[in-house]
């Protein structure tokens, strides 16, 4: 197309360099760090598996893993379910409201993560808006405490933050489904539920799979929401642990090892989710 090979190489260089020196080399260094050890708070190169041994064998890390899962899994599921409901409405039901809704969601998508975290703290405190509303309407008489500094608080804020994203991802997938497909399925005698289960959901299967994993990873790696909205136990996630090790206590080897153990656990989540979605007919049995 009139673009010379040399020009293409020139065009690719900046991005290639960014990927190499911004992602690949740092990630490789981090991986190397996970085999180093600390001596008198100084990083000593070498090769030891002690860091991994410690992460795998210390019971406390198991508590962190379980708590991370108990936050990330509901966050991912609720974000994807809520996103599907919104996306379904946008793709198949909305008429005049469609443009307005889409803009409302795109604007929220560009909202600030920190503003959301901070706002939930204001909203759900003991004298916050939710509690004052609950008491003003006599739903409760004393402030409800579990809304703040709990696992629920973390999940609510994260779902809140991820919903616009999951909605847009699933919407883009649903809007490529031919609009006649659902009526056709209904004409052939399938119930609304069967149509959803057998036609619509499988066609959006890849987007649902991707969005679930994406939110799961981001939630597990979030180290700010759990600290500010979680309680003492519920803030103990892998994200906060790793951020602490590399940002505060400066135990680089242990933090790096924790991060790569987390990646292995991610891989397990990918495999289990794929298998269960295949079993449920939401993903094709064979990869393309």
């Amino acid at each position: 197309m009139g673009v010379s090979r040399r020009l293409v190489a020139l065009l690719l260089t900046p991005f290639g360099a960014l990927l190499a020196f911004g992602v690949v080399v740092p990630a490789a260094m981090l991986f190397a760090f996970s085999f180093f050890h600390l001596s008198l708070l100084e990083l000593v190169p070498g090769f030891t598996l002690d860091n991994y041994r410690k992460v795998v064998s210390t019971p406390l890390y198991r508590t962190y893993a379980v708590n991370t899962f108990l936050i990330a899994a509901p966050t991912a599921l609720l974000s994807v379910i809520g996103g599907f409901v919104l996306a379904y409405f946008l793709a198949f039901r909305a008429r005049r409201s469609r443009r307005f809704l889409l803009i409302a969601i795109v604007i929220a998508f560009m909202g600030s993560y920190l503003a959301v975290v901070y706002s939930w703290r204001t909203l759900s405190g003991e004298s916050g808006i939710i509690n004052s509303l609950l008491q003003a309407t006599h739903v409760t008489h004393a402030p409800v405490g579990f809304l703040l500094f709990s696992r629920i608080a973390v999940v609510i804020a994260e779902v809140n933050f991820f919903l616009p994203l999951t909605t847009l991802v699933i919407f883009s997938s649903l809007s490529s489904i031919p609009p006649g497909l659902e009526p056709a399925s209904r004409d052939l005698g399938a119930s609304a539920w069967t149509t959803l289960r057998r036609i619509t959901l499988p066609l959006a299967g890849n987007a649902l799979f991707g969005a679930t994993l994406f939110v799961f990873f981001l939630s597990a790696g979030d180290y700010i929401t759990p600290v500010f909205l979680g309680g003492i136990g519920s803030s103990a996630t892998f994200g906060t642990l790793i951020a602490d090790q590399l940002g505060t206590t400066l135990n680089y080897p242990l933090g790096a090892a924790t991060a790569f153990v987390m990646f292995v656990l991610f891989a397990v989540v990918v495999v289990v989710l794929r298998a269960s979605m295949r079993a449920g007919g939401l993903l094709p049995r064979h990869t393309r």
Partner: protein
Amino acid sequence: MIGRSRLLGAAVIALVVFIWLPLVVVLAFAFNGGSNLSWPLHGLSLRWFRLIFGDEAFRSGLKASAIAAFATALVAGTVGTTGAFAFARRPSRLSSALESGSRIPVMLPPLFIGIALVAAMKTFAIDPSMWTIVTGHVIVTTPFVILIVGARLRNYDVTVEQAARDLGATPQTVLRRITFPLVAPSILGAMVVAFAISFDEVLITNFTSGTTQTLPLFVLSRLHRTIDPSVNAIAAILLLVPWLAVGITLLWQRTRPSRSSAAAPAEELARAA
């Protein structure tokens, strides 16, 4: 059937209210006259904005964030646009490998990018500075530029370029007079998206900033203390600056006669996200 569609409608309304609730609350309290963070509000006022703009630490945070966001928009815009051109115009094995690699920074948790940069900075004895902050931001925003500009390059009519060549234009003239004007709105849109992401990035910045305090980091340091109503005003700025940047760009593009729809970047982002 009517019952079911009502149920769907109610769920949609509830979800949209839920999505917008914290954003509205931040904005409402930022302009609240009272100092209580509870309902009802006590009249409109700009007292919190006056308060924070009188704070030296806030002003330097705003400045740092603005510098980082402008620099990120420029660098990510350049790196992403050149990459997108290469991917779209000459697919080769290397470029398609790089293109699939371009999604990696978006798929990784920002925490991982942050700590990987910590490892690299430690290894090569690089001190944290504005440079490292911008590097982190460029890493996460460039994929969005590639996505947005790449989408535009793929669905545009290459025959106009061929026509220009047939009419005797040199490749340089084609690039300057045909290609660039057609793609420019998308590049600008992508740069604004990069600006918006950079402006409230905190998860990576936390690791790359050292003593430089960007606005989100300023908010973060305030969150450690007791609830402080002036934080609403800062959070409102974190929301409003990116929205204004995107809004102004859209309006400006709408006033110019252009074949591409003004909302194209947002739509392309939504489609590809």
